[in-house]
């Protein structure tokens, strides 16, 4: 199977963008990340990852309209592309397949 070139953090960010579904921009992604994973990330990490994902074609973005909040500054809204959703699907499928192969007694222990 073709390997999808996606790091662990990238995968999580991609999933969060998918979860946020149209309301994904820097601040919200950062907040959701911290909320769900419990780890504290610097904003730069999120920012850079978003740019990298867009370069890889998993995300696309456009600037939203002017907002009343945050001093009228525009938000960059991220959306998962078809390539991006296939990538997370592929990953999930791969994980599932792998899970199936894990011996049953292993799972029981946890």
């Amino acid at each position, binding site marked *: 199977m073709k390997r999808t070139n996606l790091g662990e953090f990238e995968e999580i960010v991609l999933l969060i963008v998918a979860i946020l579904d149209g309301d994904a*921009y*820097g*601040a919200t992604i*950062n*907040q959701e990340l911290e909320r769900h994973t419990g780890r*504290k990330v*610097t*904003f*730069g*990490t999120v*920012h*850079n990852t978003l*740019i*990298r994902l*867009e*370069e890889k074609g998993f995300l696309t973005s456009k*600037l939203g309209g002017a*907002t*009343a*909040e*945050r*001093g009228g*500054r*525009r*938000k*960059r809204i991220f959306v998962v592309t078809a390539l991006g959703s296939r990538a997370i699907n592929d990953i999930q499928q791969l994980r599932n397949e792998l899970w199936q192969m894990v011996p049953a007694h292993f799972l029981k222990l946890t």
Partner: protein
Amino acid sequence: MKPATSPHNQTPPRWAQRLLAWLHPSDTLEEVQGDLEELYVWWYKEGGHLYANTRYLLSIISVLPPFVRRRQTRQNYRQPLLMHPAMIRNYLKAAFRSLSKNKLYSLVNLAGLTLGLGVAITLFWIVRFEYSFDRYHSKADRIYRVNSIDKFGEQQPHIHQTIIKTLKTQYPQIEKAANLYGWGAKTVKAGTKIFNQNNVFFTSGDMFDIIDAEWIEGSPKQSLNAPGNVVIDDETALKMFGGNAMGKTFRFDNLTDLTVSGIIRKLPVNSEFPLQMIISWETLKQLQPEFKNEDSWGGGDSMDQGFVLLKKGASAEPVNKGLTSLALKHQDDTGIAKFVLQPLSEMHFDTEKDAFNYSMSKWIIYSLACIGMFLILIACINFINLATVQSIQRGREIAMRKVLGSGKGQLIGQFFGETAILVFVAIIFGSLLAANLIRYSSEMLNTQAAQSEIWQGSTIVFLLILGIAVTFLAGIYPAVMLSKSEPIRALQSRLSAPSGRGVSLRSKLIVLQFVIAQVLVICTILGVKQVKYFYNKDLGFEKSGIITVAIPDRNAANCERLRSQLMQHGQIRDVTFGLTTPASHRNHWWGRIKHHAFADGEETFRIQHVDTNYFNFFHIPLVAGRKLTSTDTTSGLGTSKENTYVLINEKAATDLGFKNPEKAIGQKLEIWGSKGTVVGVVRNYNSEDLKSKLMPHIYFYTTWNLQLASIRIDNQQKAAALAVIEKSWKAMYPNYYFEAKFLEDDITKFYDNEKKLSNFLQLFAGIGILIGSLGLFGLVSFVVTQRTKEISVRKVLGATVPSIVKLLSKDFLKLVLVAFVIAVPLAWYAMSRFLEGYIYRTEIEWWIFAMAGILSVVVAFLTISFQSIKAALMNPVKSLKSE
């Protein structure tokens, strides 16, 4: 979501915000600022002021360079290749269309560039040729000429054979050393045919180990060892023997028989060694026994020079020092104060010494290079002027291109491309022109560049570099100006007037052009004037209507017979014999005269041998004492007798310390070890060209050294007189080659360099003015088309033709006048520096400047008025109705 407004204390530190705004990439700044502000509020709620600040600062640092990742600009539109074939085709089409649309400008541009570049290419060939002299020898960097300087600071021309012998035997640094003695032209007789053989030399085989020559037969080791051996070049072999010459014998100068023992390929033209007939040194020893003497130091001939080949890595300095100290030991014999080994590469540029081929001073070469550059500059200025006025017309094309997405770089490239096309076409025409010009170069300048191979690899390289440089020089300003123009302005108005700055730049360039042209004109007029001055200056003796022929055998009885035979004919007025005529470069004999009145105890005099009629013949008056008579022979010279009576000239008398020449009578002078008594003083005359100082002279009456007959003829019957002279001379000397010369031609030849240089300058000045007026012509015609409507309206309102011509010409003529004001001091300075080099010189007079000024104003006015009168005569209806 978050509250729309946050409380005052929930804002992040101001300085951190500023840091972010300052350093974060601008394209993502807005969203990042917003995100961080939102996050700050959230952090604040979660953990309070300190927590929020800490996290905020960490985050800010994480989005500053070098940590931040930059968003790549998304390419919505893929730029086609700049060098796409379709674009190139488009550029070519645009270039061709704009050139053919403005045929006049293109033609003017092309003509100006062609002229300027053509001359520049010719000059390049000449300069390259002059610099190529003797570079081809395989050991060129180790070859030196031995030069000596006497205690009066003058270059001594000759190198005595004793020095060569010393160099060979006592200096381990010297690999080879040889004398090379040029005899100029001599008569040779092969079978029954008599030839005048140029470039006759005496030397030993060693010379050919120093310089390179291609041997067809024989070798340097064997061919020049024995007396009677001679080596000739293939050209001479063909001339004398029609081919196979090896082993054949001919009669040389009616002196001796020589056998051809070697044949070399004709040496290249760019050599100071034009060896065509090389006779073995052993032969010279037999012909002139004094050359056997390799221990003494005295005597010598200016065409007898010395050459050495240093061993690899050896330095010339120890040799210089050793020879100098040796010379100082032999002061009484030589008078030489210093020896210097001169590198071969400098030999061609040393005009002080007699050259075997010809020498050229470096300043001439530098001037040529400068003039070439000036002409290129003038042509470039033309191009710039015409291109900038055209740019106004092309404004809309450029605007259209810009609107359609052309970048600035692309436009600059396009215009450079157009310039390059024109420049390279001009270079092609220019090199064709240059190939023709170079053939006349020897008439313009003392050079043989025409005989060299002009289309070498370096020519191609030069043309390429020239093309690129001129394209850049001429193209940069128009290209940058054009690409800068604003599309809106060009598309809005039908005709955009040239901006103020552009006009002033054009004016400056026109002024510069005319400054260069006028300086050239002034220099030219002065150069011509100086040459005229040389020709017309009274030299102190009569020079017109005199024919000279050589006396080959120096037999006084034969001279008398020739005289009496000639005098029987009515066409012959008078005959005299001497070593030379009063003014002659050739056969210049000199000697050191000793007398207690001289500063050093001695001084160098020019020695002239004369017959009793000499001073009468040349109308040189005696200022004191008596003339020489046939009893005053020099037979006592070299013996202890003191019956040698001599004449001196006024200069010699003054040098002896006598203002009044009468006082010099009776003075005893010592020359070459014997005494002479002064019996008379003759008036000074210029015995050299007017570039040299007056020399002290000493005159002997001799019968053994009369080498030249001077014959005054009836100027009305030149042809008949020449025929008579030839007949009598050939009857007397059947074995020699007859050559008659006019004394005036000989004297004119002194100034060949100046004459040729002034020819060259005339050409340059002409071309400078021509290119300048071409540019002016183009500019005026442009201005006229720009102002057609204005002129028409003026005419309708009653302006007269002269007033319109005046209106159009005034501005341009003003520029020419400004140029004149700048050119005058420049030219004056250049010319006074130039004239400083001459002892006898013409004056820099005001009318020269006036003439140059009037000339350029007239030329400029003619150029301008052609167009402006045409415009003024136009029917105003025509231009006004078409809108």
